[in-house]
């Protein structure tokens, strides 16, 4: 029998792995904030699904949230193109407006919704062990674990099947296009995966932690290696470590688990940022000392050997 601690840890590990895998491509594509935007913008989708089905059934919520996730991606791009505004500003407009609409919907139907904006923001992973899936009278274990397991499986399958395409695309979409790869399909496939992962994860860990797990472990790993497959593995490893570490930190100081995981992520990054042999502050300082000091251009260049 798995204890509730075990279930929480398993959930954390599954979320961390899924997020690290898709997050790596987001960071490489310089679209890190798309995860942030999606995780906020799906709120109205969740509320609408909740109102329509009058239950906290996960599947309609996933559909509603998935729809709003892709809507965010599409609206951001259309607005940026049609409205002639910078991409970041258009993203900011789209996701904050959708989130505000979600909050308003919650306040409108506050009587019949047992959903609040705080739980969307920082979730409650501690409740996972009690959200059980009873199938034909048999206790199958916590429902989030099943959903997150599915998401991880889909992510791994997608990345394995499309590895070469994703690799080319994430380093240079222009080159991918010249090679005749279906760039639009890869882009929306990736965005679909991000939406899917974000939505499945934030039910248990909240929007902000999803952002932390999407961006911080891949960015940390990016300071340690240059190879994509190592980057993916390292990011997953760092994510999983932070999930486990965060859980025990939260237990120790009696705080939110999601918040503590984000803090551990931050600590990991700070350590690597300072100590990484090649791309960290220390490594660059050492490399800078070895190379001629007259070359002032080196200060801003990554030290390559």
């Amino acid at each position, binding site marked *: 029998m798995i204890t509730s601690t075990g279930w929480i840890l398993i959930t954390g590990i599954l979320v961390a792995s899924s997020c690290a895998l898709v997050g790596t491509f987001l*960071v490489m594509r*310089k*679209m*890190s*904030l798309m*995860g*942030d935007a999606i995780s*906020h913008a799906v709120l109205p989708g969740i509320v609408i699904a909740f109102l329509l089905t009058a239950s906290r059934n996960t599947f309609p919520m996933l559909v509603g949230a998935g729809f709003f996730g892709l809507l965010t991606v599409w609206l951001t791009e259309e607005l940026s193109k*049609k*409205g*002639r*505004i*910078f991409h*970041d*500003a*258009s*993203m*900011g*407009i789209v996701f*904050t*407006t959708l*989130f*505000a*609409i979600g*909050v*308003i919907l919650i*306040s*409108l139907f*506050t009587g019949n919704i047992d959903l609040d*904006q705080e739980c969307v*923001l920082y979730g409650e992973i501690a409740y996972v062990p009690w959200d059980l899936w009873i199938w034909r009278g048999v206790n199958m274990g916590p429902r989030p674990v099943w959903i997150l397991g599915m998401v991880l499986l889909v992510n791994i399958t997608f990345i394995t099947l499309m590895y070469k395409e994703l690799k080319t695309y994430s380093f240079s979409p222009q080159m991918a296009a010249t090679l005749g790869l279906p760039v639009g399909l890869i882009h929306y496939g990736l965005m679909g995966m991000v939406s899917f992962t974000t939505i499945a994860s934030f039910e248990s860990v909240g929007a*902000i*932690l999803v*952002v*932390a797990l*999407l*961006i*911080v472990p891949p*960015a940390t790993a*990016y*300071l340690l290696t240059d190879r994509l497959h190592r980057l993916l593995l390292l990011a997953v490893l760092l994510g999983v470590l932070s999930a486990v570490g965060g859980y025990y930190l939260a237990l120790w*100081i*009696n*705080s*939110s688990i*999601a*918040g*503590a*995981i*984000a*803090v551990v*992520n*931050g600590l990991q*990054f700070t350590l690597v*940022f300072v100590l990484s042999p090649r791309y*960290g*502050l220390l490594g*660059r300082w050492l490399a800078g000392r070895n190379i001629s000091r007259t070359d002032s251009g080196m200060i*801003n260049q*990554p030290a390559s050997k």
Partner: protein
Amino acid sequence: MDILIEFFSLQDPNIRFVLAGTILLGISAGALGCFAILRRRALVGDAVAHSILPGVCLAFIVAGGKDPFMLILGAFVFGLLSMVAMDFISRNSRISPDASIGMVLSVFFGFGVVLLTFIQSTGYIDQSGLDDFLFGQAAALVGEDVLVFGGLSLLILLITILVFKELKMVSFDPSYALSIGYPVKMIEFLLALLMVLTITAGIQAVGVVLMASMLIIPAAAARYWTDSLHIMLIIAAGVGALSGVTGSFISYTAPAMPTGPWMVVSTALIFFLSFLLAPGRGEIARFIQKKKLSQRVACENILKTLYAMEEEDGRFDRVRPWKELRQRRHLTKHRMKRVVSYLLKRQLIEYFPGPPEGYVLTETGRREAKRLVRVHRLWEKYLNQQLQIAEDHVHDDAESMEHLINSEIEAELRKSLGSPELDPHKSKIPYEQESKPKTGGGGS
């Protein structure tokens, strides 16, 4: 209706506080947001707003309650810290700015959540108000808060007006500003300070999550109405203030409604209307411009075709049948009808009921057609002679340029080419007898 009068008569001191607070926030955030948008820092504001949370919590722990001065101090310190962290990470590693924004945002916010839950678990008495910082609770603003936060907004506005010229220069062209001796680093730091202060002042009303939208949306809406920065600032401030009024009003009429999200939704509505309706840059205005241009191009093409037919057989009096004209220009029936009726109205062509039925150029029409053919051939000559483009490659370019060249450019072309006789295809370039360049009709 009664409730409208009740609200705007400002009898209730609570309404006065809330309105003053939200309007001041709207004005300062709207104005400062313009710089954020122009410097492509829209989402930095989002990160700073989220990063303020741990500062607020720490201030709460230190002060043992909600003390507005301590909260501002805590928020300000952490806001600034987050800005420095973002800048430092993207400057000193190969991590791109967007990733560093996302990291700082989520890690600082996560830390804030840890502190928040820590405070809740220790059971402070007054901790309930702390949640308001997540989503804002303008309705809870009391006299002291408004004084502090409103005073801050006024200070921000005052500084912005005083150093407007410097801020403008650095936002548009930092390297030029540096070259003429502006202290660019200092001004950038000042701008960062102002941004953090604005966000600090705003969180009480709209909360950390939605603060970014009060910076981004009014400024983006204002951009559609003007090309000048100070007008943009004024419009954005106005949009912000208006949304403050709408948000306060809605949450006054329906107390369950949160003020902040309604402020965001009303600015988004104003943004959408600007996007559609703004003259010049708006979607509808651009659609009409496009239609007008394509109508003009179609008209000018028919004139040219009539002229080309005259050139082919050298007969100026022959009527040209509708069908042949339409086939030569590949126009749909509907389109052709509109073009012909326009040309008839402007008396550029004349209709003869026949037989044979058809159209012929009027004197003005012929002059305009000649002008088009002339600038077309001059442009071909120019491309061929001055830019060394082969003569079989110049036609398509001239086909679109002929609709854009005005009399001024034509005079320039003739001056630099010396009014040549023939174009690169050995066709004669038709000049006016008196050789005076004239734009004529065509609605250009």
